[in-house]
């Protein structure tokens, strides 16, 4: 081939590649020729836990594709995941440490930055006590990272002011699982999606926020058109397209609907009396009540009553209850529409009620499955004990035995661990605002954009000595920082993520961190050493060492992971706990036959034994149907709700670096129902102002029949239009999770 022919062949190959054709080579040959090696990993975005094959060439991540062997996504990815590899080398990656000097962030050495952090933390701790410092982590950090931070702050510094963004996202689901089943996290798994005949989707835009699972539901529906999909959501989301029935309540008034469904289920005899007799208790939230008393409680919740409260059609409630009741199997899915509410725990309870009354739990095709928003909220934070009231291995701080067990593993005197829970997220940032907390370490999250009612918290975050360890800069939070520590990103570090269905998956380190970035675990160990606690962290030479110590905290617990060491996780597509030994396959349904912890002796022939409860019985709750904290009124007649779009994740620090994704959703907007728009003279793409009691925002109107009438929807991704200036910081008294999903607003044309 002469040079000209060669150039022509090159040109033709380029053209061929643009249409996805390999002109001269077979694909595998092409990979080899191009020097691409493929490695098994996990997606960095939401809580679904999609398996990914990551392509590496010349020390760079050049491509990703869905892992066809993953049972989670079976080769599928969403558009965010598809472009994840581009984020690694984004311009906005933080490449070296920075320190604020004379009001400006300037480049510093690692030594200088870490010395400053250690000196300042030491000074604050010595002068004001350990509770004057705090840690705020993330459901996107690895389990290993959260574990090290936990050990440092709770076990060595001695403060329980240790929170993380899962408080804003999952706390109500935790509260629901704990109160109802006595143990956190779902009973079933994704496998149940493939066998369910009824799907009840409450307050979840699965199609956009968990697209790969949505596709599994669609596949199920396509194969079996007789299955029913019921949606309860104030907004017609893209998820709606597969719905057989959509109940559109006024935001914040769906509790009565779930009670009304329970009432019909009981009245029309769709209950599993045997199961109720064996495995269910009833409670009004304060004391045990009888089945009869529960039935009487339900009397109030006629379909007509619920329909009136929520402004929906009573016949739809009856239809939904009958479909749910008559079907042999049912799965309920929910996310933030349920969790981010001042009655989030109660709503979780009411969902579980339906499954307990009908016995549709702990068997194939049946589950009440809380979808998780972040990739490691379940793994690192819920299981790893990354909140102010818990310890690793599903343990509670208030329990002396639990403190003793953890202190032993951490090799510290038990007196090191404060027996009093620390401040939950809103209280923590209130304490920051008041100056009670004087030094704050933020890792892998962006609270200056994600906290509700932001105006209240921003000044305090500016004033406090703020250390931010992040892979990106600028973010709304790094802008306020006193010290910035560049963190290694996905594929630049190894570790474990635990997804929605109790599955722990390993992610390999494939490339060196960008610039001077370091693994968060390494940064925390460095800090521990500089604070004088080095001895108990010295043996952490690799993430695997950290994982091995963490595994000890799970031994014999309900979330036993002893059978999931690195060597095994590297081979398999994740493992679902409990997995007590390395020859155990993992658990599909908890509390029943097949769960290694199922106590056959205690169960005495019962199908399910909820071993998190002293008598092995789950609880059906008679919770009052309370409305939202801030109902609409004449002055603020709209209910405002916030959420996400398919192409972006949370505060856009990752997806905002991918031009293709940025173009896909050109900018912030507010959705308004066409009827409301017509009444107010608002046309599509008009500039409007959305006003709440806390703030106002100028946005482009998107007139679309998605939110119900008198409802507005604002996605919260864009930092130039902070949706959380509008939201309310009222929170669930049980879970302390804020009510992002409902507040009162008005909208005016500008």
């Amino acid at each position: 081939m002469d040079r000209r022919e060669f150039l022509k062949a090159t040109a033709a190959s380029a053209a061929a590649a643009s249409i996805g054709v390999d002109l001269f080579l077979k694909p595998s040959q092409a990979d080899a020729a191009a020097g691409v090696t493929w490695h098994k990993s996990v997606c960095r975005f939401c809580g679904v836990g999609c398996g990914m094959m990551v392509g590496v060439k010349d020390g760079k991540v050049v491509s990703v594709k869905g892992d066809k062997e993953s049972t989670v996504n079976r080769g599928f990815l969403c558009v965010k995941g598809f472009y994840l590899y581009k984020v690694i080398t984004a311009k906005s990656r933080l490449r070296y440490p920075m320190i604020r000097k004379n009001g400006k962030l300037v480049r510093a050495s690692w030594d200088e930055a870490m010395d400053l952090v250690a000196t300042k933390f030491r000074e604050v701790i010595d002068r004001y006590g350990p509770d004057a410092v705090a840690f705020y982590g993330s459901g996107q950090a690895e389990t290993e990272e959260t574990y090290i931070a936990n050990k440092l702050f709770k076990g060595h510094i001695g403060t329980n002011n240790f929170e993380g963004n899962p408080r804003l996202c999952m706390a109500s689901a935790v509260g629901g699982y704990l109160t109802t089943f006595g143990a956190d996290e779902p009973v079933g798994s994704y496998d149940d999606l493939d066998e369910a005949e009824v799907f009840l989707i409450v307050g979840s835009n699965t199609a956009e926020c968990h697209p790969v699972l949505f596709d599994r539901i669609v596949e199920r529906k396509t194969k079996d058109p007789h299955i029913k999909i019921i949606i309860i959501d104030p907004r017609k989301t893209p998820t709606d397209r597969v719905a057989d029935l959509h109940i559109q309540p006024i935001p914040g008034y769906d509790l009565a609907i779930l009670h009304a469904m329970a009432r019909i289920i009981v009245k029309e005899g769709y209950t599993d009396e045997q199961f109720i007799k064996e495995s269910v208790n009833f409670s009004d939230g304060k004391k045990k009540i009888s089945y009869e008393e529960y039935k009487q409680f339900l009397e109030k919740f006629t379909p007509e009553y619920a329909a009136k409260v929520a402004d929906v059609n009573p016949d739809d409630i009856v239809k939904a209850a009958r479909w749910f009741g008559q079907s042999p199997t049912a799965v309920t899915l929910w996310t933030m529409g349920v969790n981010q509410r001042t009655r989030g725990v109660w709503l979780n309870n009411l969902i579980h009620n339906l499954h307990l009354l009908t016995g549709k739990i702990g068997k194939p095709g049946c589950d009440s499955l809380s979808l998780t928003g972040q990739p490691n909220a379940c793994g690192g934070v819920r299981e790893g004990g990354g909140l102010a009231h818990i310890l690793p291995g599903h343990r509670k701080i208030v329990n002396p035995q639990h403190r003793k067990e953890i202190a032993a593993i951490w090799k510290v005197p038990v007196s090191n661990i404060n027996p009093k829970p620390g401040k939950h997220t809103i209280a923590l940032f209130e304490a920051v605002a008041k100056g009670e907390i004087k030094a704050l370490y933020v890792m892998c999250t962006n609270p200056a954009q994600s906290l509700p009612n932001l105006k209240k918290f921003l000044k305090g975050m500016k004033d406090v000595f703020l250390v931010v360890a992040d892979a990106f800069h600028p973010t709304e939070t790094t802008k306020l920082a006193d010290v910035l520590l560049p963190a290694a990103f996905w594929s630049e570090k190894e570790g474990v993520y635990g997804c929605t269905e109790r599955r722990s998956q390993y992610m390999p380190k494939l490339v060196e961190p960008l610039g001077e970035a370091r693994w968060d675990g390494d940064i925390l160990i460095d800090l521990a050493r500089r604070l004088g606690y080095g001895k108990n962290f010295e043996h952490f030479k690799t993430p695997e060492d950290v994982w091995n110590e963490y595994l000890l905290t799970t031994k014999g617990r309900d979330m036993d992971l002893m059978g999931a060491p690195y060597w095994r996780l590297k081979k398999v597509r994740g493992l679902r706990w409990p997995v007590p030994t390395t020859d155990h396959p993992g658990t599909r349904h908890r509390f029943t036959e097949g769960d290694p912890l199922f106590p056959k002796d205690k169960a005495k022939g019962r199908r399910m034994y909820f071993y998190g409860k002293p008598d092995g019985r789950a609880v059906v709750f008679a919770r009052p149907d309370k409305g939202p904290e801030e109902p609409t009124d004449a002055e603020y007649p709209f209910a405002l709700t916030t959420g996400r779009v398919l192409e972006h994740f949370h505060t856009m620090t990752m997806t905002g670096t991918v031009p293709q994704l940025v173009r896909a959703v050109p900018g912030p907007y507010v959705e308004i129902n066409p009827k409301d728009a017509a009444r107010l003279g608002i046309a599509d793409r008009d500039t409007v102002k959305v006003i709440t009691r806390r703030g106002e925002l100028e946005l482009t109107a998107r007139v679309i029949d998605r939110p119900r009438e008198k409802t507005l929807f604002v996605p919260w991704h864009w930092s130039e239009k902070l949706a959380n200036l509008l939201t309310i910081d009222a929170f669930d008294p049980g879970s302390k999770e804020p009510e992002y999903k409902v507040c009162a607003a008005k909208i005016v044309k500008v």
Partner: protein
Amino acid sequence: MLISSMIVKTRPGKAETVLTQLQKIPRVTTYGVHRGNNIIVVAEIHDIKQLENLTAFIMESIDDVLSVSPTYINFEDEIQE
């Protein structure tokens, strides 16, 4: 001399007819029809103006062409001059 490649997209079922016509253009080499209606074309041209003329010519004088998308251009020889 520059070397440029492009994808010529045709209406469904018309790729073969378009292909024959493309093959008549001097200094144009075709590399087959792919994915139904995409023809890979490599052209040897003198300058950018000629490339523009060529794309316009393909677009306007050959029936059933939906689009012409340039995908690659090689300047190497020219830079050496």
